[in-house]
């Protein structure tokens, strides 16, 4: 299974989010609910000095209200931020925060969008 799929499954297992319902990989379908999260791998990955892959990941959180979007973003942020190893995901060594959630834009459906970014260090 792919790394981003593993990560989505981990987020789903530890929050109320459900993969392909309100938790999506890469992009959301047109029929997505107002409140949802999208996980995207970002360009610029590299290897650490200790040989670990450093994969950048972006988390986009959307909500009809500012507070709902921020709260959802914070839930995922708290789950991943600066975490040493994820249970069930043996290849992931550490999740480092690049930036905490910040409001980016309001989309065509009037939803607030928050973005946060992480570096996942993995084997």
């Amino acid at each position: 299974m792919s790394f981003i799929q593993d990560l989505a499954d981990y987020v789903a297992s530890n929050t109320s989010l459900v993969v392909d319902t309100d938790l999506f990989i890469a992009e959301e379908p047109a029929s997505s609910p107002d409140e949802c999260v999208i996980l995207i791998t970002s360009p610029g990955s590299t290897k650490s000095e200790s040989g670990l892959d450093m994969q950048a990941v972006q988390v986009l959180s959307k909500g009809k209200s500012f507070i709902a979007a921020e709260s959802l973003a914070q839930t995922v942020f708290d789950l991943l931020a600066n975490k040493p190893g994820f249970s069930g995901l043996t290849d992931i060594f550490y999740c480092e925060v690049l930036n905490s959630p910040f409001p980016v834009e309001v989309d065509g459906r009037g939803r607030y969008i928050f973005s946060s970014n992480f570096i996942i260090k993995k084997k």
Partner: protein
Amino acid sequence: MIKITLDTSQFKRAVIVATAKVERASQEGMKSAVKALMNDSLDLPPACPRRTGALAASHSVFVNSKLVGTSADRPVSEGGEATPLTFMPKISQELIGTLVVHKPYAASIHEGVSRWGTPYTYKTPGTGRKWVQSKLLSFGEKYFNLIAARIRVTR
């Protein structure tokens, strides 16, 4: 009785001079590093998106709030305008390099988000989201080395 007097004034002077030289060198090194970050962000894939070129021509780099370069010389087609930031308030006495992309839509394009809730479509080949973040991740060590190298050659 033996009285020993040690004159440390020359040593103190040398330390003060060395500190000043290292400070100057680290600022010069940071200048090279932020300029390299700006140029890499503009030229290496995923590079800064270009429609009119206005976004690409609106990058500025600062060292400790002092302007050390802009991308205003990059080509901009009709309808676009280069608006690089040329002034920023003093933020710290520490050594800080800053890259500013001075357009209101810069953050959303960098994060890959369009106003229509879909991933942003980058039309120019070789350009894309995270044009700055990706360079920090890929070439972070190079930027640190530019600073370190400048300090290392200081005498």
